[in-house]
């Protein structure tokens, strides 16, 4: 049931974010998901672009009390508000690039190919990449503004983001798959972008939500976990320890099954797809709350009904 609602929502959000701009919808520059600004006619932009560009850290502190400074703070405030409001729902239910990865996973399942698994050591190693990318996208624009780094390094993450060549394909634009021979920097970035896009497509085919392992948006969303209106909680005393939640998780999170003391179990890599909640066969173990209102509570009855087919 939840899975179906999620699929419908994902597709509606995909259409809304990719083509919404053509209907005059403008959601601004603060979206906490990969709504790629390189898609012409998109309805909103990923905040990572604003963060790397003129509304990010390259902005001079001296100008903070100007209208431009107000804009920087305003976009950041909207970004935080959206995170507090919907938290990781942005990843599992709204992000168009996440939906694209889910399509590849569906294709793999339809062809009967088993999902690849990483060892915990590999996985923990890969987890660090997202922090490197986050540092990269914050530091480079600052170096351009204050240390004279070549301006072709601007928007460094966007230049290698796999969404940049892939997402515009849905509007018929293949230009971002081109090698850019303007100069050495543009050539290197364009080649890297294409290679990374290919790696992510192959990776996402063999491994659910492969790119989410490296997504620098996730740590940013996680920063505001404690003040988020959405709460993902576990009653550890009622858990039988069956491990279904871990097995069903597309991003291999162990925290939900292993946690015994803390109530809050939303992991940094969680995309709130709710597959763990759907697969929990026990009553009242996992719950998702919006403020004090319960959105979902696991139950044996739901589990049986959901898995009857």
């Amino acid at each position: 049931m939840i899975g179906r609602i999620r699929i419908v929502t994902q597709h509606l959000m995909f259409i809304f974010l990719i083509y919404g701009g053509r209907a005059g919808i403008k959601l601004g520059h603060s979206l906490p998901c990969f709504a790629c600004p390189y898609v012409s006619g998109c309805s909103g932009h990923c905040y990572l672009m604003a963060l790397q560009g003129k509304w990010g850290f390259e902005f001079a502190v001296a100008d903070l009390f100007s209208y431009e400074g107000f804009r920087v703070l305003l976009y950041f405030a909207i970004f935080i508000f959206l995170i507090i409001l919907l938290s990781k729902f942005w990843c599992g239910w709204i992000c168009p690039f996440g939906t694209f990865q889910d399509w590849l996973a569906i294709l793999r399942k339809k062809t009967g190919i088993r999902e690849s698994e990483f060892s915990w050591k590999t996985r923990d190693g890969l987890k660090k990449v997202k922090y490197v990318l986050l540092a990269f996208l914050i530091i480079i624009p600052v170096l351009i503004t204050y240390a004279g780094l070549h301006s072709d390094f601007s928007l460094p993450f966007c230049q290698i983001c796999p969404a940049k060549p892939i997402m515009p394909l849905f509007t018929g634009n293949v230009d971002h798959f081109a090698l850019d021979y303007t100069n050495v920097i543009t050539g290197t970035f364009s080649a890297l972008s294409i290679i990374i896009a290919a790696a992510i497509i192959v990776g996402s085919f063999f491994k659910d939500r492969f790119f989410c392992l490296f997504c620098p948006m996730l740590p940013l969303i996680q920063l505001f976990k404690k003040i988020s209106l959405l709460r993902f909680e576990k009653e550890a005393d009622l858990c039988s320890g069956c491990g279904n939640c871990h097995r069903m998780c597309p991003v291999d999170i162990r925290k939900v099954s292993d946690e015994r003391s803390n109530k809050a179990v939303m992991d940094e890599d969680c995309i709130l797809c709710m597959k763990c909640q759907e697969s929990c066969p026990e009553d009242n173990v996992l719950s998702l709350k919006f403020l004090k209102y319960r959105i979902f509570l696991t139950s044996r009855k739901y589990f049986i009904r959901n898995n009857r087919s």
Partner: protein
Amino acid sequence: MKFLIEIKKCFLSLLSHFFLTAVFLFQSVISTAELNLPDTDIQSNSYLYFQYDAKGKEADGSAYQVLKIRTNNTAKNLSEFDSIEAYCRKSSRPGKQDYMAYRVPVEKLNNEYYVKIKSGNYSIFDVYVSGNYKNNTYVAQTVFYLFGDGLKGSTGKPGLVKLPEYLPVFELTESPQNYWPQTGNEFRFLCRVPEGSGSIKQMIVIIDNKKVSRIFTDRNGKFEYIPAHDIKLNKGGTSSYKEIILLNSINRNGKNYTAAFNLLVHRSRTAFLNVKNGAVLFTVSIIFFTAIVLIKRRTFKYK
């Protein structure tokens, strides 16, 4: 029968080929003749021109562009000009064909003359400055975009005046509808000249104070100019630009009118893109990464 039709087609195709070749040769002869014309006054003339200077944003979010007013002839000091007047046309889309403009103050700082154009919203500006020196009238002109995004959308409607009729202005009629004028783009100009001055048939292209080429009107009376790609711009980064001066001159009642249009171009964003090579790299990468996964995995089918 079919054979005869094929022969007829071949014959017609050959005929048209010869005809086109003859036309091409004739045009070459004509253009060579024009190019070999002795230098006219244009080249020896002095001219007034805009030079792009500081660009930025004010604290209120409005964008500004400073344009320095220069003369190519160092012997001619701008302070010796009879009058220097600046006008500005503002529109939200390119190619707006009207001659209503508002006056812009010409400021002086450290013996340099300049105009500062400011906008609280997204606008296209057509800026002119005219100055008289002895029996000559000089006009400098340029077109640029400003991306103001301020609290005040507009600074109020300035009083509009009609552009003085004597100004031999350039109308950028068919520029690419793009905020990023770039090398390789096709720019088309129409030159409006003072009434009774005949028509302008040629323009001179000046880059870095050197005459680069001469362009002639087409059959519609328009000038077409495609700025060549520049390796310096390509290496220079996203904000680098090149200023190209298009110069024309006309004589009316013994008085010279010289107009210089500053065409600011950036490097091309599309000319050096190669989708075919990108697609090959993408395919090779897909094969490479798939092979890695296949080698590293143990099995691929559910058992």
